[in-house]
């Protein structure tokens, strides 16, 4: 089952204006992605870890989500130091561990973890429909936002349909394997999902027409500016300024 685990909560972060969160998460992420110096990366890592505290994330759940990253990290730590061209700092038989490879692995790891943590703290803590409307107010086109919200809305309906079809093939003795019968069955289930989605979409469109839809999209969200938003904005601006300074004006 698809769930928005972090969206439910009542931390300081949850109560911040979503626009502020989207803007700073984006700025912070790009700054980190474009930085190379270790002092900057360490500082960014520190900030993102600290950010988890006011967001009151479930640590275990956060760890589970970082796990998708873990396997990728394991792979690069095993491959890059050996395949990179550069100065050998350690030799083990035919394998030569290169310094440049290790440095790159460390950079990637710090960047990836920092960006994902800030994402979890600032963005995963809002409802997806809130995010949709926020993007709209940040001048993302209404059509795209509307598409986004419809997609999100119907994922759950279609996932239910998919699960019922899975049950249907299971009780008729289906076991997935590496053979044409299995692939064909999966393809048919998929085809069925598409057909039903397409026919449902016609009805959804009709329902929209019945309620006066004529191509315009409206949004109902409204967050009032508050002192908390201002304080958070000041803190984040300062943090980003510091990171930029460290990166581009090394002492």
């Amino acid at each position: 089952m698809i769930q928005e685990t972090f969206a439910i909560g009542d931390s300081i972060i949850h109560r911040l204006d979503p626009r502020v969160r989207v803007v700073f998460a984006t700025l912070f992420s790009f700054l980190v992605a474009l930085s190379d110096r270790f002092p900057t990366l360490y500082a960014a890592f520190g900030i993102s870890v600290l950010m988890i505290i006011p967001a009151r994330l479930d640590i275990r759940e956060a760890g589970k989500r970082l796990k998708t990253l873990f396997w990728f990290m394991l792979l690069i730590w095993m491959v890059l130091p050996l395949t990179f061209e550069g100065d050998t700092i350690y030799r083990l038989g035919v394998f030569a561990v290169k310094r440049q490879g290790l440095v790159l692995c460390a950079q990637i790891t710090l960047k990836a973890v920092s960006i994902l943590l800030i994402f979890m703290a600032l963005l995963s803590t809002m409802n997806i429909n809130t995010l949709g409307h926020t993007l709209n107010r940040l001048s993302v086109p209404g059509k795209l936002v509307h598409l986004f919200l419809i997609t999100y809305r119907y994922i759950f309906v279609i996932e239910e349909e998919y699960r019922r079809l899975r049950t249907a093939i299971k009780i008729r003795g289906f076991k997935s394997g590496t053979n044409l019968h299995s692939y064909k069955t999966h393809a048919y289930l998929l085809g069925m999902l598409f057909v039903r989605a397409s026919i449902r979409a016609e009805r959804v469109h009709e329902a929209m027409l019945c309620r006066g839809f004529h191509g315009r999209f409206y949004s109902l969200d409204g967050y009032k500016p508050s002192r908390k938003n201002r304080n958070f904005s000041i803190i984040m601006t300062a943090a980003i300024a510091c990171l930029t300074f460290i990166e581009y004006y090394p002492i």
Partner: protein
Amino acid sequence: MNKPAPDRIPLIRLSGVSYRYPGADTNVIDNLDFQLYPGDRTGVMAPNGSGKTTLFYLLMGLLKPSDGLIEIFGKPAETEKDFEQIRRRIGLLFQDADDQLFSPTVLEDVAFGPLNLGKNQEEARDIAMKTLNELGLDGYENKITFKLSGGEKRLVSLATVLAMEPDVLLLDEPSTGLDEKTKARLVNVLLNLDLSYILISHETSFLYDLTDSVYTMRQGKMKRAEKIHVHPHVHPHTSHIRHHH
């Protein structure tokens, strides 16, 4: 109540209306005559595949008749422009609430209609809250649509339609899949509405509780069910012998 009165203009009048799906060889709606007058609460009992949903689609202009004339609010309804106006005043409750509730939250869904009717954010929000309140759905406004139960979805769908303050309601099998409690709640809501409506259902008692006259629909034609009144009885029996009248 459903007698043609010369001095009253019907809300809806169908004269010889037929509809045939492209590629089909029979009419699903066949030379149909029908009127709905202000204050009418008309029931239609119809098995699946009898064209009942098609009838509603024709009235909303989602399908165009192959033949015949549709007049709504005293004017012929033919072009998409005509129906754009009509859809502001006729509310259709879909059979599957998931088709009707396409917004992620309840409030947005209920406010969608009013916003499209030209209300501003503030007004639309107020109308939505008021409608939810009237249906006993206070506190539902920020709920996520897909997490509602089947019964709640049905009631919220009704709210989305009522928020547009229609003159006529078209209800397509509103009781399907509801438990007894939600069904009773729905009956209660509908009985207290000051609206004309056409109600399609296959549940006899539901239909008779909510409407003044009942039609049956078969092979694209409608027939007044004036003499036949089907309703369930509960009899005590002491044996298991099957029992027919």
